[in-house]
């Protein structure tokens, strides 16, 4: 029986300029072994000058972002988030976001990646509840137009990262080179009551009902502090709209007041969402593909992979004792993360298979955690749809 632990995953997204400041602050506070990947934050630019009024659409400015994934226990959750908020100055619109999710961590090996002690004294500013995250995978290149539509409609600020997808293409042998692997991963955190509306919006904007366009799901967020700056415009006023929104959030103690619609738009209630468990697997670089390939036989038909870097304690000597033997392989800073949506009933079988493949061993140094996904959507052929409906009933 694989042991499991209740924990919290904190995602911090902030401008690359603050990378070292935040990392050193976390490191000094005792937070190590976090995974990092680069991303970008699109923002609508200011239309300037003569041509600005002629061109209809706003230009997009992309800001480079650093994204940290930190796993810790509930008692340390707020402290970690405060350290990040303070050092990246997140109360200023445009600097970034931080939010937490409830997760379940599996296997003793994963404990290595959880922060269980911290030394930090920091004042507790409140965080907001009532948020939901939306995770969307699209073909590479689609991230930009959809971000633009999201920004223009004032829905929120998406974060774009790069990933690669596995799935149908891996069954094609060498022909798989004809199908591109690269994906854009779009994540956005919105007010919970808006979540379904936003999901429908993205599904329509990205035409996710057609085959091969991508898939989308929502995941619950515990606490958060979210960037609100959708556009650069607004320097003309004493306060720009993002600051007003941030101030109102603070006054109202949450983001509930931002609710836009209370009813689901008619005509889309026939959309068939499904649910499942999102299994996140982080391991040393190069091994994710073979683990996922082995899991295909268990029904995991696709996954999304990304490159991560492990930031560890810097005063540890990195040299292994014996370069020749594999017995003391350290955790490589070059890591991979992949996530796959699996049905709850298959979870146990999948984890046991992974352990038997050595996913938690010294070579692969894997870590697994799961989140519950209440709603997911993608193109479903008629045959699959009926089998899913039969499953659930």
């Amino acid at each position: 029986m694989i042991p499991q632990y209740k924990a919290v995953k904190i995602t911090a997204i902030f401008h690359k300029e603050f990378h070292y400041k935040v990392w050193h602050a976390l490191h000094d506070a005792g937070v190590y072994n976090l995974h990092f990947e680069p991303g970008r934050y699109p923002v609508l630019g200011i239309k300037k000058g003569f041509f600005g009024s002629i061109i209809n659409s706003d230009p997009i400015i992309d800001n480079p972002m650093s994204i940290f994934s930190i796993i810790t226990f509930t008692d340390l959750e707020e402290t970690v988030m405060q350290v990040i908020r303070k050092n990246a100055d997140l109360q200023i619109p445009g600097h970034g976001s931080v939010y937490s999710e409830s997760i379940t961590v599996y296997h003793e090996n994963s404990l290595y990646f959880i922060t269980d002690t911290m030394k930090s004294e920091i004042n507790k500013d409140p965080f907001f509840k009532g948020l939901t995250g939306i995770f969307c995978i699209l073909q590479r290149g689609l991230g930009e137009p959809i971000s633009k539509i999201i920004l223009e409609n004032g829905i929120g600020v998406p974060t774009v990262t790069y990933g690669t997808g596995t799935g149908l293409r891996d069954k094609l042998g060498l022909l798989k080179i004809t199908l591109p692997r690269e994906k854009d991963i779009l994540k956005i955190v919105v007010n919970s009551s808006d979540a379904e509306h936003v999901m429908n919006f993205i599904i329509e904007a990205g035409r996710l009902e057609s085959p091969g366009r991508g898939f989308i799901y929502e995941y619950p967020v515990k606490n958060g502090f979210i960037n609100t700056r959708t556009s650069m415009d607004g320097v003309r006023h004493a306060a720009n709209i993002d600051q007003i929104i941030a101030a109102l959030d603070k006054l109202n103690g949450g983001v509930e007041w931002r609710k836009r619609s209370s009813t689901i738009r008619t005509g889309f209630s026939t959309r068939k969402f499904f649910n499942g468990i999102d299994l996140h697997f982080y391991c040393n670089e190069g091994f994710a593909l073979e683990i996922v390939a082995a899991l295909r036989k268990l029904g995991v038909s696709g996954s999304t992979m990304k490159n991560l870097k492990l930031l560890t304690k810097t005063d540890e000597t990195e040299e292994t004792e014996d370069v020749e033997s594999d017995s003391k392989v350290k955790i490589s800073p070059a890591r991979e993360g992949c996530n796959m949506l699996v049905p709850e009933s298959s979870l146990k079988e999948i984890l046991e298979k992974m352990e038997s493949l050595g996913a938690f061993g010294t070579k692969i140094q894997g870590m697994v955690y799961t989140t519950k996904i209440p709603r997911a959507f993608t193109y479903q052929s008629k045959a699959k749809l009926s089998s899913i409906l039969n499953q659930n009933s």
Partner: protein
Amino acid sequence: MATNHKEENIKIGFTEGLGLILPYIRQKLTEQIKSVFVIVSYLILFQVLALHVPILEASTIAFGISLVIFGLAFFLEGLFLGLMPLGETLGIRLPQKSNLATILIFSFLLGGGTTLAEPAIGVLKSAGSSVKPWEAPLLYLLLNRFSEYLVYSVGAGVGIAVVFGMLRFLYDWSLKPFLLTLLSILLPLTIWSYFDANLQSLTGLAWDCGAVTTGPVTVPLVIALGIGISRVSGESNGGISGFGVVTLASLFPILAVLILGLYFQSSVPNPMTEKEFIELSQDSQKVFYIFGSEDGYKDYIAKNISSPLSNGNMPITPPEEELSLETLFTSSFLGALQAIIPLTLFLFIFLTVIIREKIRSLDEIILGIFLALVGMGIFNLGIGLGLGKLGNQVGSKLPSAFRAIEIPESTIHLKNFDPSIVQTSIMPNGEKDEFFYLKEKKSYTSVPFNESNLDRASGIYEYVPIHGPIYGKEDGALGIFVVLIFAFVMGYGATLAEPALNALGVTVEELTVGTFKKRNLIQSVSIGVGSGILLGVCKILFEIPIAFLLIPPYLLLLVLTVLSSEEFVNIGWDSAGVTTGPITVPLVLALGLGVGGQIGVVEGFGILAMASVCPILSVLSIGLWVERSRRKSMEASDKIEDAQSKRGNS
């Protein structure tokens, strides 16, 4: 997805497979057509419309160009599929599994080996075919008798560069100190060599050697290696930290060649006139040294100096090698094999034997290498058949924009030439000049009469038509201006098609998660190269010593480098090494030979060096502008926050 289907590999039928492969091929081809389109259409239109010279062998050239497009598509796909993943895997494993000494030895071998495999040095040697031993003795020595030493010194330079590049990644050193140190050695050395007649002509070659070392196979491989290493080491905040080796591999060889020149400087005579060279009144031992022995010297005189004191301004035409299709074919594919196989074998052996790693996705990597081989072979063939010929034609006819040049291909033999039709004219200085009228189609043109072209026995007069100057008078400003514009657009268009730049752009976009788009990088680099080629042609036309054209831009570059962020310094300097590749170099050389031959310069080197420095300027400038707008966007909100809190406190 939440399904329970237990699925194995799908069997794909033939038609289904084609349904997958065809759109894939079509997409890759369209990409390449878009990048090659500019330079090809530009060259054709320019020759026909601006120079009024029809294109010879048009169908061969068209076929050659389509080969270039196919070749590029296959080659690039092979790069991304096979070579770059191999390099990246090696980069990730190497620091983890080997000690420092192994890594450094590997780096040196890699650097040295790729230089010996890349054919670019041979290209420079062919460019040096017009160098005369009496005008530039040191240059002639290094290009002919001691050409191996030249190649070895360049190879050693690249090897050391890769070693330093690896050290930089492992210990997280910034690139800036390297650049400042190297430039502070190279620039004064270049200035000092300006004052020595021998070294002066060598400087152009030295800087050009630096520009050509990094070719279309080395660059992506080295970049992938760097990215792999930076994923594993250093405290880099992701993004642009795998770059910089290409830069070093472009700068170190310059130093190596200059040092080589210094070493041999005392053994060769100073530049002299042709008369002194033939009569050998002084420094005869040194002159013999150039050829290796007195016999070598006598051989050279016998072969190259037919009549005493031949006029120094012989128009140099590129050697008309009528290669058969077969030889061209074999040489193209052999060149591809030579460029790719030793390198990949080296990497494979290192990976499997020394590091003992299993290679993942081996089938994709092998397919990738195969595609790259085939692609490069087809590409070389296409360049030989199409782009190279087109470039040569345009390059040799280009001077007709501002000069009267002969068109040997259109030579007419006039039969039954009656000398009585020859008339005499008088020039302002009192000299007489003979001419006769020739009726071609419906108009009468006057043709200068030259006694030596008439064979009195057979009555045949050999007439070589003269073309130009088309724009204005001889050496007029308008003609020169046309040439400069041509140079700029040619540089711009050729760079758009370069495969190594494409690979760099894709990698940069991938690593910055889309904040630095590939098309922005390619456009800014192409504009930089265009300007560089324009400056280089100026150097040839107006015979400006290379030091004047190199020092100011590099000084400006130093300032920009200090001001820019590490990210842009890495990308900007690397884009320089990337630009001069298999498309730009032959075109530039044809241009240099054509124009330089007309002007009669000592040597036509230096254009490539200029084409390397200007893109760095353009990318760094763009970088500064982007950084500024990002900082403004952060400051904008910060300022208001401050203003708010101040107002709140008062």
